[in-house]
């Protein structure tokens, strides 16, 4: 019983169960299937089905996972073995780590910090380094190009993304995610500063290489980019990492712009968490849907979008926030 109680302690429950590891894993299983189903529906067909027909093949990802699990993991002879095997682990770890700083209710969080937004943003910045390392360690030309592309993209999306997030922090006069979410009891951030919301959404998909920014692993150009040489369950880990990163960013996005757990019918941590999860899930699903609409940009076009569109937009959104604050819009509930 004590163990069960311990499990529900926030500092265990949040990183390990919800919204942490278990939830992320379940979301992975569902979202990969859903991505295929959504694409299939837009493309006039069914997608995975026969693996479990009554539920539309919902366990397709499990079959794929099993297959990966029992597949021979190959380490190329020319690769740097240690880096090759360790980077996916770090990548996955770092993609999911920021979740610890995400609160799921006004009262339920692993830890509360004055700067939790900064912590999340800083931790998400780390993961791409390992993608670059992955590209290097495989010692494959396509991997290398993929890694370099990732490197280029990072510098073009990180700064505007950070600025967009900061513009919301200015608006709420806080860097604490709990306070930010609580501040949106009334108007949501997306209404107050729509420019920042659109910008952040764009950059979020860019940073997790969703379409149309699926550039580092552009299939028809550089095979699978940094992941070209990965096989078996390690590839599964790598493939999961970008979804997990998107999931974490979606949680943050929901808190920043979509009111977090608001509107909250009953003040219960589970309901609040569910509310937040649904919002994040929809954002991830939207990312999956975009695959069916867009082809991918070229790297130079994506970079110029980062610098010429997203960067000015993020500056403007900071200015908007400042103007709103000066105009006397007081949102902080204290």
């Amino acid at each position: 019983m004590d163990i069960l109680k311990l499990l529900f302690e926030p500092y265990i429950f949040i990183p390990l169960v919800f919204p942490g590891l278990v939830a992320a894993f379940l979301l992975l299983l569902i979202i990969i299937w859903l991505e295929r189903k959504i694409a299939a529906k837009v493309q006039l067909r069914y997608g995975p089905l026969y693996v479990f027909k009554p539920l539309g093949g919902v366990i397709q990802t499990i079959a794929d996972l099993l297959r990966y699990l029992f597949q021979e993991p190959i380490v190329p002879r020319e690769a740097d073995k240690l880096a090759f095997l360790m980077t996916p682990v770090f990548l996955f770890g770092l993609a999911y780590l920021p979740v610890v700083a995400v609160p799921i209710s006004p009262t339920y969080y692993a830890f509360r910090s004055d700067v939790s937004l900064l912590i999340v943003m800083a931790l998400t910045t780390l993961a791409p380094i390992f993608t670059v390392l992955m590209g290097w360690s495989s010692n494959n030309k396509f991997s290398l190009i993929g890694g370099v592309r990732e490197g280029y993209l990072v510098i073009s999306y990180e700064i505007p993304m950070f600025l967009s997030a900061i513009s919301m922090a200015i608006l709420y006069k806080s860097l604490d995610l709990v306070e930010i979410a609580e501040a949106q009891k009334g108007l949501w951030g997306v209404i107050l500063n729509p420019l920042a919301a659109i910008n952040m959404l764009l950059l979020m998909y860019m940073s997790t290489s969703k379409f149309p920014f699926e550039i580092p692993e552009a299939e028809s150009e550089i095979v699978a980019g940094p992941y070209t040489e990965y096989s078996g369950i390690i590839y599964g880990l790598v493939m999961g990492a970008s979804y997990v990163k998107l999931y974490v960013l979606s949680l943050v996005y929901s808190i920043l712009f979509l009111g977090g757990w608001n509107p909250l019918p009953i003040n219960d941590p589970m309901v609040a968490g569910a509310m937040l999860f649904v919002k994040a899930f929809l954002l991830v699903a939207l990312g999956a849907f975009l695959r069916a609409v867009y082809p991918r940009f070229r790297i130079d076009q994506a970079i110029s979008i980062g610098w010429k569109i997203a960067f000015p937009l993020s500056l403007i959104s900071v200015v908007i926030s400042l103007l709103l604050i000066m105009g006397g819009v007081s949102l902080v509930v204290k």
Partner: protein
Amino acid sequence: MISSGERELELLIGPQHPASGHMRLVAKVDGDVVVELRPNIGYVHRSVEKLAEVKKYLQIIPLVERPSLADTTANNLAYVMALEKLLGIEPPERAKYLRTLLAEINRIHSHLYGLGIHGVMIGSSTAYMWCFGDREPFLELAQELTGARLTYSYIIPGGVRRDLPAGLGERAERVLRYMENRMRDYFNLYFNNPVVRARLEGVGVLSRHDAINLGITGPNLRASGVAYDVRRAEPYAAYPELEFDIVTEEAGDSFARVMVRVREIVESMRIIRQVIRKIPEGPILHESYEKLIPPKLRESMKQRGMVKFPSVFANLRVPPGEAISRVEGGRGEVVFHIVSDGKLSPYRMRMVTPSFRNVILFEHLTRGVRVADIPAIYGSLDYFPPEADR
């Protein structure tokens, strides 16, 4: 393996690569810019020209179809036309219209094939699925007419193998209307998609002068503003009696090549409608062959609308001489040059396919483009390696 100290990186794209098709592209890149790109073809070389020298005339019909599986009618028709020139026979009117009908259905689904492959090359799996999905109704029509999905072997010396099935015209009309409806969504989702435009416009520009100089053919030529189409230059089958426009674009870039294909689909639909309206009654096999078929068989053949071959087809002898024929297929001009010495097989058969003539564009168009433009250009050429390698 990557070695250090080089400024240029040599990329071997293919033959196992999501966007290489059945060939290898050897690209030298400096950063993200392609310095030089050389196609390494021959991965699907199956020696059609040599095998033609040991196969009998009729047996070559399926042989010449195989190289370009998505556009078999053009090869079939071009070969049979050369054969008919040597034999000195002219097919009956109705057969000519049926040939045109199949050629145009084939042109549409060949273009859709090319557009779909191009879509997946720039990352839009939806474009691929849509094009391949909408190809199916046309395949369904062709299948009803000929009895096969892709390899029709429909056109034989002196005529065609099957008569028009009852009600096909009406079904074709339904398919055409479906396609017209869908075209709007294609434009909304794909052709007018800003990302597609950004990827294709101004990429791989082929000037009019170069297009002529390099002997480019088909939609790739017309996208550079040259209004050349064999259907006009040397009309064959029922084309002299049909109204259609030659589609051209001026820009010469990847997007123009895509647009030429899209507009040609519309044009082909116009031709199909005319064929169905105008098709005359009559025999579908030349009378000199028809009278060789035993009378009893001839009756049942007329009833079923399926031609039985006269036994002379098993060992068709062709007078000595040379014949050249050309046909405008989906990908461009197919040229056959047959040298006959009066025996059962051709002495020499030269088959020049549009893809083989367009292969030169790989090195020409890719100098100085970015790595990501390689598939965008490759796809826009609608290049089919087996067709080039034969």
